């Protein structure tokens, strides 16, 4: 398993050709407590940069983007009842979607933990 980060403040935990995607602690802190999370349905094919989910705080809606090309396998159903899990445990129980990679070579363009730490300064 390898952990990657994106400049959109998302993380991917990759295992074979599947990845779990969520937002980083930094992003969770910036968004504040979430009140609603909606993921696109399983089976949706997305290109890198397209929305896989929307998260809403009191103040604003934010898209969660596909970091690489692939297919949504599963949304985190627990977030429908308790979207604040994303705020309290963004890199654990607050994961957002499971994703099947269609072009794993795209992972090379993402950051590791060290690079992301430097990116957010």
């Amino acid at each position, binding site marked *: 398993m390898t952990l990657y980060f994106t400049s959109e403040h998302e993380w991917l935990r990759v295992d074979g050709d599947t990845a779990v995607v969520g937002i980083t602690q930094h992003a969770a802190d910036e968004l*504040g407590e979430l*009140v*609603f999370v909606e993921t696109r349905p399983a089976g949706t094919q997305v290109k890198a940069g397209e929305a896989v989910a929307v998260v*809403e*705080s*009191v*103040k604003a*809606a934010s898209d969660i983007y596909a970091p690489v090309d692939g297919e949504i396998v599963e949304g985190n159903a627990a977030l*429908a009842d308790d979207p604040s899990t994303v705020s309290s445990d963004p890199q654990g129980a607050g994961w957002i979607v499971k994703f099947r990679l269609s072009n794993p070579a795209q992972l090379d363009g993402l950051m590791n933990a060290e690079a992301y730490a430097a990116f957010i300064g």
Partner: protein
Amino acid sequence: MGTDSSLLHTPLHTLHQDFGGKMVPFAGYSMPLQYADGIMAEHRHVREQVGLFDVSHMGQVRIRARSGTVEDAARALERLVPADIVGLKTNRQRYTQFTNASGGILDDLMVIALEECLLLVVNAACKQADFAHMQDNLADCLVEPLEDRALLALQGPLAQDVLSSFDADAATMRFMDVCMLEIDGARCIVSRSGYTGEDGYEISLSAKDADRVARQLLQHQQVRLIGLGARDSLRLEAGLCLYGSDIDETTTPVEAALEWSIQKSRRTGGARAGGFPGADIILEQLEKGVTRRRVGLLPTGRAPVRHGAPLYADEALADKVGEVTSGAFGPTLEAPVAMGYVATPHAAVGTELVAELRGRGVPSRVAALPLVPARFRR
């Protein structure tokens, strides 16, 4: 504009930083969006205890008639607003709007009648334009922006307990009363009013006293600082308009369901009927009705329906009947809350409409405003 260095600071800037305020640009000022607790917790704290808001970015303006009488200043101001200002008693406050020739709203404001003058509180984003508007139209008055004053709001069910511990007179005031109170040695002009739907006070004081007084108020364990984020969700639940979103130059006070703020004396047949910009249009709307109205909306589900979302008569999303002007998640109701304009035939409380959100329909019911009952001390 745009860079942090160009933003203005209120007299409480250091305090915001000391308390971990997340500062954002707002109407040319660096203002706290929230503090460490976050918007949800701050919102709930105001509904349950007391919140302290810095609203020093708002404009405070003193108007004195050149003749020296307050009544002449009131008569002059009535040329610009549809409210009864002549009839406003000393030490009372009233809500009104500056209107334009087509009946639209240039800004909404509070007017305080003091013994010697009128004091106006206007929106931060409009204050330069308001000042010019008054300079141009109130030649018989001295119009002075009070640049050296701060404005605090103390809001919540325990606000009276806190403020009366500094000056017992705070407890004798009723909603929209104005009183000179002494808070930690500072002479303050205090009104019992606010923008949250809760009981509370708005406190105008010298900029040099503001930091000290705010820190004294925060010594009470029930009092916490509250940012602009919760201020917005509180006012939305309370059904109060945000200038620039819910009201602007294209909406009239009648369309905005603010006709309660136009007293009888200024209406057709009243002692000083009309005489303000757009009076012909506004007075006719009061008698004949309007084609659209501002209403409260309760969307179903949990997804907030926000500013700009179109409203339709039904799920087909074909027959557009209005638009959302403010929408957020309401922490008190733990549900989405919104307001918007809808065509009058669809404006009755209980009407089922459908808002469009990311391409699909969200059933949304027209609801009476306020969406959360007000708890003013009338």
